[in-house]
């Protein structure tokens, strides 16, 4: 393969000039990552603390009060007692409480006599995400209550104690912010390069380009280089903001993380270039890049829906999409501190996707000018 680095650099230099003179590209490259990060970091908060819990204590014993206290001492609930005349469901109807705890009569007596105490927790199922979180808290609370009330702990029954590793605080930001890098690069990279070749076809400069002895590989390489630098800058910005603004811990190796970032950025840029090479029209390229950049990055990467719980088809389909693999790497490195060995599979998948995309972009590059 004939490849002239000087020609590729000439194209790269020209692209840098385009970027510097086009405020839109610069804004897209540097502004969009920060905007997305701040939006997701501040607005989406899947942590629920201080959940208003109305308590109707029909038992009025020491034990019933103690039981209610296990809820407040968990730190997640704020208890608000109310009299027994009001129907518990009305609190949920009026959305004045996220949940209602009803402790039945004889709760204390039953516990003392070694039977089961009865209590009822009413939750608003309309707020699905919150209810899910509350239920997960509930398991811990019941665990605590059982230990407190059991006179003689059943020695043989296994005690399940959930301990969250890697994200001990179960902070949604810790979870979302590293993943957001995937969405940002996956979307941005594709958008940045999707216009570049199509634009040359539309404004006629491709004709000048192709009348010189330049080769498709040189054009592709020359176009990748500056946008790589731009995307990397955007990614570093996201990383710094994640660490400094949101205090997300970074447990892994920076070498591993930035290597993976570079590979993923190249894959996203190559995807955009391939679209541009094939579409040859800016409008079509824009639409294709929005669809093929946005959807996989948001929906099929595991950002919102875990890949493991997708239907079988999608579980396999996501394998040809780079965001899914980088999501695995990003979360792994940030929170688990995974190294090259643990990430060999996603890394080699990314490299394979890279090779395919770049090869396709070069092969599909038309050097024929039709009227």
């Amino acid at each position, binding site marked *: 393969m004939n490849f002239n680095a000087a*020609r590729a650099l*000439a194209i790269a230099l*020209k692209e840098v000039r385009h970027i510097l003179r086009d405020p839109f590209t610069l804004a897209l490259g540097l502004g969009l990552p920060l905007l997305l990060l701040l939006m997701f970091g501040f607005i989406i908060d899947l942590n629920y603390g201080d959940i208003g819990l109305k308590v109707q204590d029909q038992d009025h014993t020491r034990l019933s009060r103690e039981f209610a206290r296990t809820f407040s001492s968990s730190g997640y609930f704020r208890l608000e007692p109310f009299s027994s005349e009001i129907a518990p469901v009305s609190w949920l109807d009026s959305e004045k409480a996220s949940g209602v705890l009803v402790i039945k009569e004889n709760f204390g007596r039953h516990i003392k006599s070694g039977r089961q105490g009865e209590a009822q927790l009413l939750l608003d199922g309309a707020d699905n995400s919150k209810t899910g979180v509350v239920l997960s808290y509930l398991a811990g609370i019941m665990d605590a209550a059982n230990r407190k009330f059991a006179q003689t702990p059943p020695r043989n029954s296994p005690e399940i104690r959930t301990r969250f590793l890697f994200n001990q605080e179960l902070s949604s930001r810790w979870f979302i912010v590293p993943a957001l890098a995937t969405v940002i690069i996956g979307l941005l990279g594709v958008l940045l390069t999707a216009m570049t070749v199509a634009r040359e076809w539309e*404004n*006629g400069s491709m004709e*000048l380009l192709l009348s*010189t*002895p330049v080769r498709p590989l040189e054009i592709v390489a020359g176009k990748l280089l500056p946008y790589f630098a731009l995307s990397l800058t955007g990614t570093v910005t996201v990383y710094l903001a994640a660490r400094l603004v949101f205090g997300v811990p970074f447990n892994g190796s920076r070498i591993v993380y930035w290597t993976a970032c570079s590979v993923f950025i190249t894959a996203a840029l190559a995807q955009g270039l391939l679209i541009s090479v094939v579409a040859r029209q800016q409008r079509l390229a824009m639409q294709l890049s929005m669809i093929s950049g946005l959807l996989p990055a948001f929906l099929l990467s595991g950002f919102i829906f875990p890949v493991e719980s997708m239907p079988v088809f999608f579980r396999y389909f996501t394998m040809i999409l780079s965001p899914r693999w980088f999501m695995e790497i990003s979360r792994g490195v940030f929170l688990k501190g995974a190294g090259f060995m643990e990430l060999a599979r996603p890394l080699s998948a990314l490299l394979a996707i890279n090779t395919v995309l770049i090869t396709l972009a070069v092969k599909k590059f038309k050097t024929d000018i039709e009227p």
Partner: protein
Amino acid sequence: MSADVAVNVENLTIAFGAFKAVDDISFCVEAGEIFGFLGANGAGKTTCIRAICGLLSPTAGKITVAGRNVADDLMAIKTLVGYMSQRFTLYPDLTVRENIAFAGALRKMPARRILARSKELFRFTGFSYPQDTLVQNLSGGVKQEVALCASLLHDPAIIFLDEPTAGVSPASRARFWNLIKQLSAAGKTVFVTTHYMDEAEQCGRVSLMQTGRIAALDTPQNLKAANFPHPLYEISPSPAAESDFAAALAASGAGPVRPWGLRYHLEEQNADLWRKFSAERAGQFSQRRIAPTLEDVFLKLVGGGAA
């Protein structure tokens, strides 16, 4: 293949689906000549020139440029020739200097040579704007001058200019043709397409193109002489002309008549019948013997629709 043949085209056909943009044409361009393609839009001029420059693969036929086969030696040919598209091909958001430097870098020219050549070419073309002007701020004719400099930067021996003067002012057009003649005088082969008759007159040889075929190919003088062996008259009807004047002129049998604006061009093939008509319609017109132009040739061979 003799060394003084710049371009040789044999049985070239270029089809897009069922449509043949270029239909089995053969011709030869000698080194150092100004060779013109004259034809209407869609006659296949651009398609043919693109194929010669290696920008399009022909459906059939053989093209050699400077003795090299285009199909086998694409990159070598791209280094040898200079090509200026009819479309505007510079980057509007780059400056003149940046555009030129980019064109040079793609051709692996050292920076010092690019500088020297561009100075030379700017002097040659009379380009006088600051080189840090963004190309988008230049007028059409000036842009074309810069585009010409970009395609001449590597000092190609064969230069392809595809409608270089389309859409520029008459003054720029005249200047451009001056440049083309200077290039030719310097020993370069210039292959130019146009749909202006006056430009075609300035070519060494002209190929008249019609729907992908060559209708005629020769020097402008020979084309005129061969197609107009008889005297040519310009007939101007006077206000006194009767309404059937045009029909009567055509039916006179004196020779073929072609409308020419408000006037008519008559090829006098039968002098007796012409004298008879002149006598019958005395006072209704004035006549003037004229030399045929390429436009007469074009209209005769290709018909209306050009220029």
